[in-house]
């Protein structure tokens, strides 16, 4: 067999912390490493990230490889692929886990093909096959209508994981581990792209990924004006407004609040779908919600197969009355 051993998790950093998806990766990585009887390593690549190595250990890593270099401050494929190849050649992990994030979804395929292996993206389940000891990789396909289980024949076996599909361990600050620094050894002339500007499209209020309540509108809302009613309900419930794809394509709402397989994938406590048909693509983005409520005038709409409570009716009449009653209940 190959001389690849161990599980490695690429841990992205946001601000002064490891990203939630990174520690979720360490959580499943720890399980897989235990099943294989092998080591769990965390890989931190960036600029000014060295102090977070201890955090990776607290979340389950045995070893942390740190590549800290100013040229790695903003993600660029050429730089990151070259650095990761260096790390993989040194560490030789049998499994590599990355988050399905802006950079992860970009880096993973390039790295996999540079290494002569393959990657399975957006996995929602990972396990070790008891006979072959290969990684069983489960991911949604056909726009969320089905799931497929894949195996990779080559090493390292690479996957990206979906946000909130896995659980982080409780951090244990007494855990001990080894921190290994690897020099980036980057040649800036090898980076073919140049970032001219980074634009943040701020949505006022609470960020949709962080909201416990999301009120989402679909094609039936009909206009940007219509979304104002959803904003009112969201504000009442201290939540955020989301949308399926048609309102974004029509320019009624910004693209950044699109929820779906190719938009944002969220899992709030409460998801209120207003005039949303519930296509598999959209449901992929919100099916992790604890409770789904649907308001739609079409009794046959797919959303009613996924919602726990609902009203079959015209949202223009239902929503104002619903918001009014909610305000009353909160006040009492």
């Amino acid at each position, binding site marked *: 067999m190959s001389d690849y051993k161990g599980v490695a998790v690429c841990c992205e950093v946001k601000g002064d912390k490891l990203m939630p998806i990174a520690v979720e990766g360490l959580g499943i990585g720890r399980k897989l490493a235990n099943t294989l009887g092998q080591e769990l390593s965390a890989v931190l690549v960036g600029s000014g990230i060295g102090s977070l190595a201890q955090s990776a250990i607290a979340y389950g890593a045995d070893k942390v490889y740190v590549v800290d270099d100013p040229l790695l401050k903003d993600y660029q*494929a*050429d730089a990151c692929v070259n650095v990761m190849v260096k790390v993989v050649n040194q560490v030789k992990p049998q499994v590599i886990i990355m988050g399905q994030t*802006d950079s992860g*979804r*970009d880096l993973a*395929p*390039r790295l*996999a*093909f540079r290494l002569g292996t*393959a990657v*399975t*993206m*957006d996995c929602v389940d990972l396990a070790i096959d008891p006979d072959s000891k290969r990684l*069983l990789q489960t991911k949604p*396909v*056909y*726009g969320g*209508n*089905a*799931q*497929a*289980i*894949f195996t*990779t*024949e080559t090493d390292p076996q690479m996957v990206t994981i979906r946000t909130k599909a896995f659980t982080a361990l409780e951090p244990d600050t007494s855990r001990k581990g080894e921190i290994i620094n690897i020099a980036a050894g980057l040649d800036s002339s090898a980076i073919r*792209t*140049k970032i*001219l500007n*980074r*634009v943040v*499209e701020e949505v006022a209020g609470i960020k949709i*990924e962080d909201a416990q309540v999301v009120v989402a509108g679909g094609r039936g809302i009909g206009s940007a004006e219509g979304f104002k009613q959803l904003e009112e309900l969201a504000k009442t419930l201290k939540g955020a407004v989301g949308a399926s*794809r048609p309102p*974004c394509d029509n320019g009624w709402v910004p*693209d*950044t609040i699109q929820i779906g397989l*190719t938009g*944002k994938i969220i899992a709030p406590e409460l998801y209120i779908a207003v005039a949303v048909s519930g*296509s*598999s693509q959209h449901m992929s983005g919100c099916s992790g919600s604890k*409770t789904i*409520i649907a*308001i739609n005038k079409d009794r046959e709409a*797919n959303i009613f*197969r*996924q*919602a*726990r*409570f*609902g*009203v*079959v*009716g*015209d949202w223009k*009449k*239902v929503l*104002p*009355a*619903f918001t009014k*009653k909610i305000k009353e209940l909160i006040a009492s």
Partner: protein
Amino acid sequence: MNIIVCVKQVIDPEAPPASFKIDAASNKAEMHGAPPVIDPYGEYAVEASLKIKEAKGGKVTVMSLGMNLLREVVKKPLAMGADELILLEDEAYTGGDGWSTANALAMAIKKIGKYDLIMCGREASDTNAGQTGAAIAEILGLPCIALVRKIDVADGKLKVEKVNSAGYDIIEVPLPTVLTVSNEIGQPRYPTIKGIMAAKKIEPVVWKPGDIGLEPSRLGAAGRRTKIRRLFQPVHEGKCELAEGENPEEMAVNLAMKLRVARIL
């Protein structure tokens, strides 16, 4: 600008979920009663290419790999305004994975020889893998910018807006390059009558593995690194409790009460 666009024939993702069925024996899926289509993000890639052709002049060549490619389906990009259609249509190409497919497309692109830009959709609607663009770029030694929503061409370079979860980046990339696009690039145009008539007259070029110098060890099932173990539909349990009422307003009030009773609000 010589632009090559990769598209794929897929089962219709817009067909109602209820008509989606899996054949467990072959690990394949079908949409009952709905004909196949060009993958939606591939169509966005065609649209993006046509916009550039309108602005800068040039040629748009569409390429597709698959079996039983229906001519009325794969010719749609021609009807939209693309100039050429190349089909990698042969049983030998199939049974592979993302890698072997991208490798075949890359070999075909090498055979075409002259190109400035390679465009792909962000992901195919059946595999949802999102790797083809990156794989082609890696094989051909090119950069790849994914999720592009705006493309400006100037002085042999591209200035693109790349979408991310917080907004977008403006990135400069030299030509030739690979780009993948998503729906933010703008609605694909409808084929015109003139376009449909023109497309009828264009014969697709069909290349077999031998035509593009594909070694048997890298072809189809022999070239794959990923295997599918199982394809299944997760079971959805649970019923939806509908709030009753004489009119929408009454139903709304009852819904709120149900949520209060269930301690959700």
